[in-house]
């Protein structure tokens, strides 16, 4: 299996990231960064721009990365900060992309897409700071200490946000599933 090894073998922590290592890192994690930005509620039209920004920050801040740790939480932390800044700068002007996905599941079709669309739609209803904790821990499976560290919050705060976010996620999912059931009943003619 050819997986991406963090480039510490080629680049010591004190050295900048070489272009070859950067390319490997980009190839291995571009999907993850792109998806993370989507989970953080960035509009589809802006995700490519922010993905580019994330990797530029990676280049600038490479020396800050603790190469003994997994890289994904670090990448997520960068994506989160950029998403926060982006959401402050550009107020949401159009309806949620996640909702749009949920209503028009045509891209990869099937149950998996449906599930992913539901998750995104439910995530979209959670405020960004709590959504970041929830995404990093409950979806990416990152340890809560790492979550707190990468998001720059006390562990206690991280746990409190997780607890609240789980409640919000479950409530959102119940509402979405309920609405969908209702739509199905309308479509079947059971409810008029």
């Amino acid at each position, binding site marked *: 299996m050819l997986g991406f090894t963090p480039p510490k073998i080629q680049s010591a922590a004190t050295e*900048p990231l070489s272009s070859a290592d*950067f*390319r490997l890192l980009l190839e291995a994690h571009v999907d993850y960064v*792109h998806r993370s930005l989507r989970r953080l509620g960035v509009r589809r039209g802006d995700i*490519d721009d922010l993905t580019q920004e994330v990797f530029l920050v990676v280049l600038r801040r490479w020396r800050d990365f603790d190469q003994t740790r997994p890289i994904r939480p670090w990448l997520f932390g960068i994506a989160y900060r950029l998403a926060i800044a982006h959401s402050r700068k550009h107020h949401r002007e159009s309806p949620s992309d996640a909702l749009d996905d949920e209503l028009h599941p045509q891209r990869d079709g099937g149950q998996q897409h*449906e599930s992913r669309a539901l998750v995104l739609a439910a995530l979209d209803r959670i405020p960004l700071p709590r959504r970041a904790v929830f995404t990093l821990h409950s979806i990416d*499976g990152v340890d809560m200490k790492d979550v707190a560290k990468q998001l720059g919050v006390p562990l206690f705060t991280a746990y*409190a946000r997780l607890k609240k976010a789980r409640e919000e996620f479950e409530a959102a999912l119940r509402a979405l599933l309920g609405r969908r059931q209702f739509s199905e009943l309308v479509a079947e003619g059971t409810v008029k």
Partner: protein
Amino acid sequence: MTRMGRPDGPPDEFSTLLSIEREPPRLPESQRAQLIARVLASAAPRAERAPWWQQLRLRTWSIGLAFVAFGGLVWAGQAALRGAPEPARQAALAAASSAAASVRARAKAVEIDKDTEMPIPELAAAPPVDSAAPPVDSAAPPVDSAAPPGPHLPAADTKFGATAGDELAALNEARTAQQRGDSAGALRAIMAHEQRFPRTIFAEDREALRVAALGKLGRTSEARARARAFAKRYPRSVFISKLSPWLAD
């Protein structure tokens, strides 16, 4: 439409949904290639890039060499045309024009290279790294798409429900007391928490809260001692700035 859960369904169904979302879907190939090319192009000035004087020297030399080679080929072709019989002259003419075209293309490529920050010629053709396998350093285990999604919450969530949730609730009492100005109550709650959870994952938060409570109660020397011990134990803590009044000499 496939039903994945009921409005009154158990939370386990939600964790099934989360496990499906765990491994990010791969971007469509064209979008992926475009995005990677874009990032590489914008990143090039920050990645390895030779100083401008070296780049200028290399480019000048490349273009100069290309023109010298082009001129040489033209001259050789004309010389061959002058002395050779008709069929050989035709063959030499064809060879010279082909070689000249290749040199012109090379010179053009060098010119293009001068404008782009980082050449990425093999991008479209090269297979992406690790296209089939998940990254090694992924924090989450990859989801086997063939296997049915598991009905249970992730291990971390289960642990959260069993222990960290109780610890969190107990420490929250102390924090709430401190917030409403009842520092003595906060201190009592902290001590109770300490007895109940001597090895807690919230030790850092608890200690920071204790310093704040002691300071509020006017027990400054104790607060200072605790704050110094805290700074020694958690030098990179996010609470350090908040405890600075007790850390100052």
